[in-house]
């Protein structure tokens, strides 16, 4: 057990836990960040996507010990921001959401893309979402959701 401190959705937090505990479990169990989903536990599906120092990562692949001092954003944080609200509303309006299990992770991937590129081409959107798997939508409407987010939020990113 060791104490690890980091910034979670803008707040300084710390936790006493095994530094090898998966960040996914820390976020879900210690901070009730239940928007972070476990889809595979092996870094393949992206359902547990979060932003770590602004970079899109799979939280199932990261041990707690590696995030000392880091800045972490989960769906719980993103949904409270103007950008997050634009993405959620755009996803809802374009039909990007079906079973919903991949969607919070998709939202994180959309945010990570739009921070770098606020006017992405379809191919750039498809590339940015390619680490996040979805079995329901065939991706077309998620791609549309990201495009719509970029259009609606062009002054935000």
């Amino acid at each position, binding site marked *: 057990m060791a104490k690890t401190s980091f910034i979670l959705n803008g707040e300084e937090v710390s936790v006493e836990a095994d530094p090898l505990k998966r960040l996914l479990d820390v976020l879900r169990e210690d901070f009730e*960040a*239940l*928007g*972070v*989903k*476990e*889809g*595979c*536990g*092996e870094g*393949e*599906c992206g*359902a547990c996507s979060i932003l770590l120092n602004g970079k899109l990562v799979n939280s199932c692949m990261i041990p707690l010990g590696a995030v000392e001092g880091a800045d972490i954003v*989960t*769906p*719980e944080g993103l*949904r409270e921001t103007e950008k997050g609200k634009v*993405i*959620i*509303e755009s*996803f*809802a*309006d*374009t*039909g*990007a*959401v*079906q*079973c*919903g*299990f*991949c*969607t*919070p992770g998709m*939202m994180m991937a959309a945010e990570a893309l739009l921070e770098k590129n606020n006017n992405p081409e*379809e191919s750039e*959107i*498809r*590339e940015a*979402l*390619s*680490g*996040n*798997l*979805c*079995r*329901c*939508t*065939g*991706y*077309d*409407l*998620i*791609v549309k959701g990201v495009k719509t987010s970029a259009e609606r939020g062009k002054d935000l990113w």
Partner: protein
Amino acid sequence: MNDEIRKSVRRVDAVAKASGLAKYISDYDFGDILYARLVRSTRPRAKILSVTVPELPEGYYYVDYRDIPEKGKNRIQMIKDDWKVFAEDEVRYVGETIALLIGPDRERILNILSEIKIFYEDREPAYTIEEALACKGGAMVGDDNIYGEYNLVKGDPDTAFNNAARVVEGTYRTGFQEHLYMEPQGMVGTWEGGRVNIYASAQCPYYIQKSVSSALGVDGKNVRIKQVTTGGAFGGKEHFPDVIAVPLAVAVNKIKKPIELIFDRIEDISYTCKRHPSRITIKTALDKENNITGMDIDTVINGGGYESSTLIVLQRALLHGIGVYNIPNAHVRGRAVATNTFPSDAYRGFGAPQGLYAIEMHMSQVAKEVGMFPADFKRKYFIKNGDMTITNATMKDNVKLEEMFAAADEMSDYTRKIREYENDPYRGIGISFVNHGGGFTGNGEQEIIKGLVRMKRTGENRAALYVSNVEMGQGLQTVLRKIAAKELGLKYTDIEYDNPDTDIVPDSGPTVASRSTMVVGYLIQECAKKLKGKWDEGVGAEAEHRYIHPSEYKWDQDTLQGDAYPTYGWGINVVEVEMDTVTYEVKTTGIWSVFDVGIPMDDTIMDGQVSGGVIQGLGYASIEKCEVLDGRFRQHTMADYVIPTSMDFPEIKNKFIDNPYKYGPSGAKGAGELVFDAAAPAYADAVQQLTGKNIYDIPVTPEMIMELEE
């Protein structure tokens, strides 16, 4: 009116799901909970000689067949009840449930699990259809390993073959396919109100209630099932949840504490049902003018270790086995075999995709034999209203395939491209034509389901609907609200519809077989009319409506003769591909689809169904390889069982052709499976056209193309 209902609305569940606020089974806090792991067979076929369980620490439990109450039985009551809750003296597949190990600490459970010793006497297993038919290791089921056989005959196929000028033959194979819903299987069992309660990610709450109550030997009402928000299913949460709910219920019944049973991904891929592999041999008799005079189709599917729903899957494979064609003389034979692989079960399409893949590939190959392009040849045989079906009833649909083909051709430029690509070694284009019967086969909606729905006025301008059908991503909670709202003149957001709880909702049947919108939606529409008539009775007014089979559709389940389905959805896919002639990698460059789903109940929701179904079908056709090695699925992680990503396929261009069905709500027909069916044959047809070599098996991998080319 129809234009009004199809107008896209925002899904009722979208914002909560996108925000991460929707709660799936792993997001609930049941307080002081125990965890369960399955003790599984490591052998494909063996006698269990003995099981040695170490002394368990305080608070840990080992639950097996001896814990089933005396009044109950060690059987999972699915369609056939041959599957045991817990293996007793024999195992038939790797992963078969032998016991549950339960306790408060997950790490410790794993440690104890590794100390449990099971002693087996192995028998020689059979994994493939060929090994099963040869009764390798001795027959496991009956004296021939065959769960069941059916034969459908139309006209006089023997005479057609005796008089044939030539016969074209091909054998087509399809593999296992994993559902890979994003949320793995999971449920929690609790002891509340002196009975077992199950909270589950599932499609069919009443199926679970039936199998649990039957195993425990109690009345159905003594088991409560609550569906929780379900992260995808595709048929994988139709029967399989029963396989884990029943042992979990036995454990809760014994321990009387909440117990969680949630699979991790590797468990989920390794130890859940897959789509039935198939081997289908088709022979076509042609006369001197190259007209089809007869057809013989021999279908075999791999049911795995237990029968479960396999024969119903087989029936659907046969009923769709002749595709969208009117063949004057035909014999369709079907057998399902027992093997030592994980039992196969429901998967979007339920047998139809296998049958449709084979007939579509075969028809393209016959076209090539007679020197015609596939679409030109296939169109000559399109079934029409009034033609005789394979089950010797008239086709009652107004079949719009010609109009649909015209639309597909205009969008994709198929007719020009297939001629242009004939001598192009890099580009190819394929086409497929399919139909899919909505709802249960024959009169099953009446004889088996007898669906009942209820509605209630709950406020000045509010009503609630009570059905056992679930939202699993397909949009049902929005679509059924729209249907009810339309009749009542309310807004769809003024209709209440919770995840079903068997204590509250009547049994309107399972969420399967593309029936929820078409069949249950119609019941809701009719029930809403009744409620409207009682609206003035005030808040609390209730109405119920039960399914009645339309009398013009006749069916004999014993002989499989008559109207197999009251109506069909129809579909066309066109797929265009490019191939790298060095690596044989195929890239899909265009996808077009045209579907007749009656009237879409929401354009955007249906667009989502089309994209999701087509891409899942293209995965089945191209990359989703799932092999059995020593009785285990060789691809059992998401790194090696790969599904399409956002970069693998381009955007689908789709069009709907309206064709309202009189017993569907506002004209809607079933759609959820239809949208899967056409993709695999269109993709394989494109590769076949590109390479000029017949494709028989899917998935079509670069290795397979390399072998064909060399």
